[in-house]
């Protein structure tokens, strides 16, 4: 058997196993032993939690099991969910009470920034707020036109400049427009950028400085958008964007697929950044406030396809 067919064969088995939830896995154990924790760790890694965070979670569980003298494997399920939810709880609310406040949306290419802005704008409009969108992605083909569609859908005002303009200058204009028109919130779109490109990260820092200068006392959210299908690289993304722009929260998108987005656990563990929203589709109302308990449940309970 060639290596290929071997791996394929192996995957077939995994899929069967993967399609079973943690609950089913626990069901197959009669006592709590090391192999149970090994399987648990495996399931966590499969949800993109990452090896070291998965180990930490299992360590915490081992400790709890010992402390509480738990012997029933199925009791682990609740403890696991609680452990994970505990890690992620806190800091979910948007802090945008000043008038105006600013939301700067950043992230690598194609994660869902522009779409998320459309969704947030629509949400805020629904709360009766006046929203201005700043089209500071002046780089990608038709990025402004895309945001324009979202502005129409959500009923927000759009501030734009021609393609190729300085993004910081668009942000300046958007803030000025918000002040002049008495808007409640300014949301700025930015071009997707990979976090290892220094000049592009410097550009973000510059945008941040413009906002600070123009609205020194305003509430400011800097949301990092992460694609839930992303693996461990998301930790690097969060670290570098944090350094360049000071992230206040994460929006985890594309959770309507089978990806689990477990990497946010590693990010919370290493950098302490909270998740604020999740994206669950491409429509305007496919945005939900983050709920740690529900997320923890979905991370383990959701059936995989097949």
């Amino acid at each position, binding site marked *: 058997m060639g290596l290929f067919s071997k791996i394929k064969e192996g*995957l077939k088995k995994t899929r069967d196993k993967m399609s079973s939830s943690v609950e089913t896995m626990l069901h197959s154990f009669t006592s709590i032993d090391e192999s149970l924790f090994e399987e648990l760790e495996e399931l966590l890694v499969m949800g993109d939690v990452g090896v070291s965070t998965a180990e930490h979670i299992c360590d915490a569980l081992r400790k709890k099991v010992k402390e509480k003298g738990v012997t029933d494997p199925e009791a682990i399920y609740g403890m696991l969910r609680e452990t994970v939810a505990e890690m992620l709880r806190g800091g979910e609310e948007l802090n945008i009470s000043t008038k105006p406040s600013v939301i700067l949306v950043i992230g690598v290419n194609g994660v*869902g920034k522009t779409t998320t802005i459309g969704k947030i704008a629509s949400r805020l409009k629904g709360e009766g707020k006046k929203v201005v969108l700043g089209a500071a992605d002046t780089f990608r*083909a038709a990025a402004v036109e895309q945001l324009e569609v979202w502005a129409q859908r959500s009923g927000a005002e759009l501030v734009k400049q021609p393609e190729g303009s300085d993004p910081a200058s668009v942000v300046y204009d958007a803030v000025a427009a918000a002040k002049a028109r008495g808007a409640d919130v300014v949301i700025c779109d930015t071009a997707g950028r990979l*976090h290892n490109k220094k000049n592009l990260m410097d550009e973000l820092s510059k945008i941040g400085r413009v906002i600070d200068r123009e609205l020194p006392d305003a509430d400011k959210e800097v949301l990092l958008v992460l694609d839930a*299908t992303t*693996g*461990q690289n998301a930790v690097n993304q969060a670290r570098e964007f944090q350094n360049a722009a000071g992230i206040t929260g994460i929006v985890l998108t*594309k959770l309507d697929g089978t990806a689990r987005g477990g990497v946010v656990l590693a990010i919370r563990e290493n950098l302490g950044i909270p998740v604020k929203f999740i994206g669950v589709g491409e429509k305007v109302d496919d945005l939900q406030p983050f709920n740690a308990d529900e997320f923890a449940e979905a991370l383990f309970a959701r059936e995989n*396809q097949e």
Partner: protein
Amino acid sequence: MAFEGLADKLSAAFKRLKSKGKLNEADVKEAMREVRLALLEADVNYKVAKDFTNTVSARAVGTEVMESLTPAQMVIKIVNEELTALMGGSDAKLASPPSPPTIIMLCGLQGAGKTTHAGKLGLMLKNKGHRPLLVACDIYRPAAIKQLQVVGENAGVPVFEMGQEDPVKICKAAVRHARDYGNDMVLIDTAGRLQIDEVLMNELKNIKNEIGPHEILLVVDSMTGQEAVNVAKTFDELLNITGVILTKLDGDTRGGAALSVRAVTGKPIKFAGTGEKLQDLEIFHPDRMASRILGMGDVLTLIEEA
């Protein structure tokens, strides 16, 4: 860099092994644990990583350590060779049917880089003397058609569009158009979709059945985590893809998704996307990818020099 990590850990694992005789089972087992962890940190699918290290173990046990190498280097050499072999040859040739046009369909998850890579391929083919035609089949994403038009204009390649018409109809008309106007290459940009979205997956299948593309390329973001296996497997099962384009390799991801995709589909990775500009398209290099996944550039040169 992560490389030091793996090399150091392997060296430590082999510290006890003083002689340079044959690699014994216990030592290899210890080393494979480290290799497996490195693969997982690189986002290689859990099961793929396990099967891979099993295969490597089988080959490594009993292997004579070369005079010039340490046991750790020897293991890295074997791992790298196997990984490169698994990653496949570097044949990026596109199908060339007896009668033009060659029809190439790009598909994949949302935001993977399909539209951008339609433009990149268009430019590359144009520069080779072809007369490509880009086809706008994403009728859902806001401003998707406009984006392809801008990309096409920048590449100097014509774009065929029919607004929000049914994608199957658009494709049929586009192929007719290509025949009439002497376009020998037709590049179809489709909307991003989740592999579990039955309606949209069927749309691709219908396009395939109606116009019989010669190439169906799955566009995969190199930052994808464990989910890469589900994505690649479903797209391949449904459409029998002919190859893969791995995008956003200009980032700092280790790119383990490449191995997962390759392992589950057996289809070649034909091109690598290395930037947002239209020139940023390269032929895929399996050996470079292998070193990248292992997080080691220098040790390979080290081994070669030894």
